[in-house]
């Protein structure tokens, strides 16, 4: 940087503008809105049976109860894709005649206080005649399987997505390959488990007839559309606000049936109604994810080049399709992205979503990618062993290093640094030194292991990427499309008559610090300081339509749109300044709240230009608009962040417990707008990945009853389970992002499980134990270690007897 260049706000770890109010206890979450209102409370009667027919619902007099029979005029939630293999089902707001999972809402009760609503809940009796529950992919797809939904399945029973790709050269290359290496990997069901469970508060305004819904959502605009469609009302009759939201991680981006009921009741009764979800309900009914099993086979040359990948991917998606992204979200992502950063030429994949009588799935941070990366990175380690090549060398050899690079599913990898991040990570890890420590520890009976995980994180994708999930379709002349195609982000930027800047965005942050980061980007363009930029979000009355915050997209898309709008506004300010200072707009620099002529050094405060615009509009030389506004949309096809994770672990052979002793991240998220925020995203993500690998698991019993319904059974890590996380940054920019930033929200969660699975497998390799299914809980590892030790002992006895 030269001395004349103005200092850049971008790239600095500014403390967040979001924090002071939260630190003082003045955050405003949905439950806080309800707490300070004399609203009624809703509670939901939920099915305790996984599959069955509702025989009767009875409540004593005095209990205000709603059942499906009271929902005249209310539609159902339908989330569909235009694909020939896609089977559409529909989600009633309250179970109608049948129940399909434990936790499904069957009825709603209302009372004047939350405690009384809980009392009322206890008094409702639901009689359900059980049916055999469909609880596994094998059961669901067997001949004569009972159907979770009574619809036509053109392919296998209960199979709602059945995607396939088979590249023309696959058969030949696969058959001819020198080595074939196969792995089967899988993940247990998981909960995103935001610390704030779901909540909603609907306030009916008799003056306007409108209802304002405060709700824990990541996408207020889309939720409003969904609510209006289901309730058959004008979208403008609703205002949806996401106030402070206590974490989402994907679990708050689906339209909740409970929210439909809360809005419906508020409108009917013309009163304010709140619903505050309990943790138990959150585990049972607030969306699950990642119950997947992948069989993956790689074809390698003698030298270790991965030529072709064959895969069969199965996702247990539960009982319903989440709105708007559908139950295709896991299998379709896995099918498109499985081969990741590796230069695979040929690809044959079948990827399925299969229904079950369990809680429906929705995205959770990384969606399918943690399992995709687990598959590819286990494949690399197993192949390295089989081919006797160093695992780092094998990865290095196969990582894509020329860009753009089209992978066999058709996605294009843009500028990235796969080899460099691996090299940086390997250097930080110092594998040779680790092997020495490992050997020394082994001598003392201690089991250490190291594991690598290289991956690409697809981020910041707009409409083009979402459109690719459906087959191409034409709009019918007068009907809406059956499919929702998310993608763009739009911002409206304005400078007021005192030169204060506001930006209204369609994205909807919930903890990411986006207000701070966008203010930094905008400040650099306008020459103001971030404290002067106010970001307005998460209120459908105050912001342009947008898709919200998910899929590591907000910084790329809302950031890109903000930068484009700010450039346009900066252009206008330069024009105004040049008419006062002389010269051309191109001679004007904006910095420190002033417009300055680069040659003469003369300057005019932006405040003066703002007052000119609004208060002396008759004097504006070019007769321009009496406004300082710019609107911009950003809708790129997407970019890829990339990273390499390394885990070191120690396994206690007596208990099976794994201690993660070291965790390294070499990350390339493009240009860092606020490095502290980026590191925070990585650290939080890695810990969720550690949880996925070692601790967290939603368990159903053999009747389909969820067993893990409290934080005593479902075990998110505390600080005790978490090592220090060391992070190194590379900053490769891409033409796919105008700000240069790539998304970073999901990467930690995506890469960590594979690194840990590889590390534990390394620690236990001498016993023939590999971790392919996660979580590797102490119980599972202890059992595997004991049986391996017993087998080795028996082996030894046999040999001794034989000799």
């Amino acid at each position, binding site marked *: 940087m030269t001395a004349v260049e103005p200092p850049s706000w971008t790239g600095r770890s500014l403390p*967040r503008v979001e924090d002071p109010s*939260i630190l003082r206890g003045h*955050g405003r979450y949905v439950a806080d809105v309800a707490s300070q209102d004399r609203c009624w409370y809703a509670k939901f009667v939920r099915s305790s049976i996984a599959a069955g027919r509702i025989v009767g619902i009875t409540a004593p007099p005095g209990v205000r109860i709603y059942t499906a029979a009271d929902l005249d005029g209310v539609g159902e939630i339908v989330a569909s894709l235009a694909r020939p293999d896609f089977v559409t089902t529909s989600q009633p707001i309250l179970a109608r005649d049948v129940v399909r999972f434990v936790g499904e809402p069957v009825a709603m009760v209302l009372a004047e206080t939350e405690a009384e609503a809980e009392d009322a809940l206890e008094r409702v009796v639901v009689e359900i005649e059980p049916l055999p529950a469909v609880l596994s992919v094998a059961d669901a797809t067997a001949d004569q399987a009972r159907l979770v939904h009574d619809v036509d399945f053109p392919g296998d029973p209960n199979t709602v997505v059945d995607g396939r790709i088979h590249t023309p050269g696959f058969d030949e290359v696969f058959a001819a390959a020198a080595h074939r290496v196969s792995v089967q990997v899988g993940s247990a069901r998981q909960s995103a488990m935001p610390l704030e469970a779901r909540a909603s508060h609907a306030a009916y305004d008799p003056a306007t007839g409108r209802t304002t819904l405060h709700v824990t959502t990541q996408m207020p605009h889309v939720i409003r559309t969904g609510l209006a469609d289901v309730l058959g009302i004008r979208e403008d009759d609703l205002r949806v606000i996401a106030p402070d939201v*206590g*974490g989402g991680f994907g679990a708050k981006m689906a339209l909740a049936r409970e929210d439909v009921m809360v809005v419906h009741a508020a409108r009917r009764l013309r009163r304010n109604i709140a619903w505050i979800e309990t943790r138990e309900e959150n585990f049972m009914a607030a969306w699950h994810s990642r119950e997947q099993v992948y069989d993956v086979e790689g074809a390698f040359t003698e030298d270790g080049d991965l030529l072709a990948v064959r895969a069969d991917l199965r996702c247990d998606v539960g009982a319903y399709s989440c709105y708007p992204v559908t139950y295709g979200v896991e299998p379709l992502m896995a099918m498109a992205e499985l081969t990741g950063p590796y230069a695979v030429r040929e690809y044959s994949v079948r990827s399925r979503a299969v229904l079950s009588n369990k809680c429906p799935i929705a995205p959770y941070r990384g969606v399918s990618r943690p399992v995709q990366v687990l598959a590819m990175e286990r494949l690399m380690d197993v192949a390295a062993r089989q081919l006797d090549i160093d695992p780092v060398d094998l990865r290095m050899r196969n990582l894509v290093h020329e860009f753009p690079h089209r992978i066999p599913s058709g996605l294009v990898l843009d500028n990235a640094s796969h080899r460099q991040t691996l090299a940086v990570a390997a250097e930080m890890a110092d594998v040779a030194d680790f092997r020495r420590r490992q050997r020394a520890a082994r001598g003392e009976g201690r089991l250490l292991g190291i594991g690598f995980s290289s991956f690409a994180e697809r981020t910041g994708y707009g409409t083009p990427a979402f459109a690719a999930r459906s087959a191409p379709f034409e709009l019918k002349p007068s009907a809406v499309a059956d499919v929702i195609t998310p993608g763009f982000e739009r911002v409206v930027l304005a400078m007021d008559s005192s030169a204060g800047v506001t930006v209204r965005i369609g994205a909807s942050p919930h903890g990411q610090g986006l207000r701070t980061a966008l203010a930094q980007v905008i400040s650099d363009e306008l020459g103001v300081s971030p404290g002067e930029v106010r970001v307005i979000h998460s209120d459908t009355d105050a912001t342009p339509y947008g898709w919200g915050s998910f899929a590591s997209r907000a910084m790329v898309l809302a950031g890109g749109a903000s930068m484009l709008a700010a450039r346009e506004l900066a252009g206008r300010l330069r024009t105004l300044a040049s008419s006062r200072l002389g010269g051309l707009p191109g001679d004007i620099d904006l910095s420190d709240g002033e417009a300055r002529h680069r040659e003469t050094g003369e300057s005019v405060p932006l405040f003066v230009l703002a007052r000119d615009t609004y208060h002396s509009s008759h004097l504006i030389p070019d007769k321009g608009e009496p406004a300082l506004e710019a609107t911009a949309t950003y809708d790129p096809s997407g970019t890829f962040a990339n990273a390499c994770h390394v885990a070191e672990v120690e396994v206690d052979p007596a208990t099976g417990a794994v201690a993660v002793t070291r965790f390294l991240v070499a990350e390339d998220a493009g240009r860092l707008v606020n490095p502290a*925020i980026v590191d925070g995203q990585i650290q939080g993500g890695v810990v969720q990945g550690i949880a996925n690998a070692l601790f967290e698991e939603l368990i159903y019993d053999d009747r389909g009853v969820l067993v893990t319904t409290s934080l005593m059974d479902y075990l998110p890590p*505390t*600080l*005790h389970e978490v090592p220090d996380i060391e992070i190194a940054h590379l900053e490769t920019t891409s033409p796919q992002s105008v700000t240069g930033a790539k998304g970073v929200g999901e990467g930690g969660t995506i890469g960590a499980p594979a690194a840990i699975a590889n590390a534990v497998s390394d620690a236990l390799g001498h016993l023939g134990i590999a971790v392919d299914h996660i979580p590797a809980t102490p119980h599972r590892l202890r059992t595997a270690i004991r049986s391996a030790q017993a087998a080795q002992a028996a082996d030894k006895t046999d040999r001794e007897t034989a000799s």
Partner: protein
Amino acid sequence: MSQTVPVRLYVNGDRHDIDIEPRRTLADALRDDCGLTGTHLGCEHGVCGACTILVDGKPVRACLMFAVQAEGTSIRTVEGLAPDDQQLHPVQRAFWEKHGLQCGFCTPGFLMLVAGQLEEKPETDEEEMRDVLSSNLCRCTGYQNILKASMAAAEEMSG
């Protein structure tokens, strides 16, 4: 409506005379009856620690205590941590400077936990601080910066 009892609570130096059902938890009473919504509820079964407050200087899970049990005690919540509108408590400041929060839902609980610890034992070392912090859950931060912030506050408060 079930029977209510009068309860007098002293919170952040203010007196609150409220009429509540005996089954009302202290967390609900603080939030709904005293209007102090900074104390959050993440589980209502004593695990997450989002509801941590100080009762007579000791960290307590407000979801596990009945409001009637708090009669006659001195209660501190996150709203009472900062000395005034202009300044923050050292623990709050450290959490801000070290990026110790993301969504902020766990934050009041962590702030009270750490403030309680450091006001009693400002010279708390990192190992002990790790133990203390392990009693609460955060889903966003991965704890790295919570630990850094807590140690920065310890340094300031013991210095």
